[in-house]
Structure formats: structure tokens, C-alpha cells
């Protein structure tokens, strides 16, 4: 029975989780690895998780695993590599229609992982404050204030991106 439930959950949630991981990790292989680890970890604990909390549990697990990976990356000073990757992306962006998507990934990756998760849960997973608070094991008022902070940061990032685009256009 559990295996059937697991299979259904995997079919329903893997795409959402994969896209969340893509946004914050900005690397397909890492997103695939963390997705796999998340579902394996979930399967081990499935019996002790309430069915109504499956989705929250999955996102929380993915978040912690992604956070660990980001910490490891930082420890290995791979940020330089990521920055170079970003520049490479920027070159490509002007040539394909992935531009907007990459800008969003770029903006979200500049947030703290917890802030990116909040944005993910509210905008892409359509969770309300109560559900987000349950997922992150916090209060609804904390969710609101953190979301506002995250959005303010995003406003700055979007404005900077716009300036950069304008500068690039004026150079061309």
C-alpha cells in the first residue's frame, strides 16, 4: 500500500520539487541528486509522517539537503565557479528565450535559502500562510514578515537586473 502511495506522490510532487531545487541550486545534476536523496529519505520515514504533511515533509527535507549542499559548495569556494557559470548564462540569455527564467533563478539564488523556500511555497506551490508555517515549523506572523523581507530583496535585485540590461543595451 505504502509503495503505491509513494509512487503516486513521486509522480505528483517530483516536478514541483525538481523545479524548486533548480531555482535555488541552479544546477541540473545537483537538483537531480537532491531530488533522489529527498524521496529516498522520505520513503524511510513515510510510516511516521502524517499523510496530510507529506508535501510539507518533502519540501522541508529538500530544503535541508539543498542547504547542506550549498554550505559544502561555499566551503569548497565554488562560488567563483558559480559566478562564472552565471556569466556564461548571461551570454547565452541574450540568444535564447530562457532569459526570463534564468533571471528568476538568478534572483532567487541571491536570496537566503529559507527566503527562497518561502517564495517557492507561496508563489509556486500556492500554499497559504498556515500551510507555510506548518512546513517551516514557525508562526504565520513570522512567515508574513520573512516574506516581506524576501520580496524587498527581490525588488532590489529586479531593479539591479533592469539596470544591467539597460547598460548592456546602451553598450550595444
Amino acid at each position, binding site marked *: 500500500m505504502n509503495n503505491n502511495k509513494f509512487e503516486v506522490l513521486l509522480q505528483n510532487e517530483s516536478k514541483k520539487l525538481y523545479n524548486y531545487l533548480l531555482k535555488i541550486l541552479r544546477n541540473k545534476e545537483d537538483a537531480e541528486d537532491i531530488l533522489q536523496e529527498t524521496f*529516498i529519505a522520505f520513503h524511510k520515514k513515510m510510516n511516521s509522517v502524517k499523510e496530510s504533511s507529506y508535501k510539507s515533509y518533502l519540501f522541508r527535507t529538500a530544503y535541508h539537503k539543498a542547504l547542506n549542499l550549498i554550505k559544502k559548495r561555499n566551503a569548497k569556494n565554488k562560488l567563483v565557479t558559480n559566478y562564472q557559470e552565471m556569466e556564461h548564462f548571461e551570454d547565452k540569455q541574450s540568444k535564447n528565450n530562457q532569459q526570463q527564467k534564468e533571471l*528568476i533563478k538568478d534572483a532567487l539564488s541571491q536570496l537566503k535559502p529559507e527566503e527562497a523556500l518561502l517564495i517557492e511555497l507561496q508563489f509556486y506551490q500556492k500554499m*497559504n*500562510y498556515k500551510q507555510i508555517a506548518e512546513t517551516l515549523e514557525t508562526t504565520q506572523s513570522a512567515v508574513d514578515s520573512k516574506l*516581506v523581507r524576501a520580496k524587498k530583496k527581490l*525588488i532590489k535585485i529586479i531593479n539591479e537586473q533592469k539596470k544591467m540590461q539597460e547598460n548592456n543595451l546602451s553598450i550595444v
Partner: protein
Amino acid sequence: MKQKDECSFEKKLNAYIAGELSEIEYNKVREHISSCHLCQNEIRELQQVDNFLFQYTEEEVPAGLNEKILNSVSQSHTDPFMRKVVSFSIAASVLISFMAGILLSSGLYADSSDSNITIGEDSLYSYFEGDYDV
């Protein structure tokens, strides 16, 4: 910029556009916004973020990844009851083999220990007596 902090409604604006306020609060904020330029600007900015984020279109999970996960799960994590059954079976078979070994060896030594040694001794004698060609 200081003026911005003076509006007490600012903190409620995100919850307002997210539909997280009660009906009474929602109506209060809506009424306030209609006459507050600071809040109108703030809402415009917040909605700018929303519009920006909603432009993201989801990517498909790479082909075969879900199947790979299912395979990993079935390999790494068999049913706990079955694991107990398998563990118990292994432990029982080891114990039975051990006991059987003890019983068999004690039985063999009791029945034919002398004759075995005799055969061995005979063979050795024969070898040194030159019955065996080298």
C-alpha cells in the same frame, strides 16, 4: 523615505495582496489604500515581484529520473517486516548449521576415530617402507 515608515498599514500589505487577511481587515486596508499614496506605491512594488516570479515556467523532470528513484527505493529499503523475516532466517540457519556441525563431528569421532588414525598410520608406514613409488 521616512514617510514610508510612518504608515501603519504597510505591514499588512503583503498579507492583503496574498488574501491572508480577514474580511474586516481586508476592507479596512482597501479603504485606506484608496487614499494613501505610500501604500499604493508599496503595493505596486510588491505586485511587481509577483509578476516577475509568475513568469517562471516549470521544467519537466528529466526522463527516467522518477523510475531511477523508484528503483533506488526498492533496492535500498525493503519492507521492514520482510527484513526481519530475512534476518531471522539467516540467524536461524547459522545456528542450525553450527549445532549440526557440533553433533556431526562428535558422532564421527566417537564411531571411527581409531580406524581413521590406523589408515593414516598404515599409509605413512607404507610410504617409508617403500611401498609407494615416488
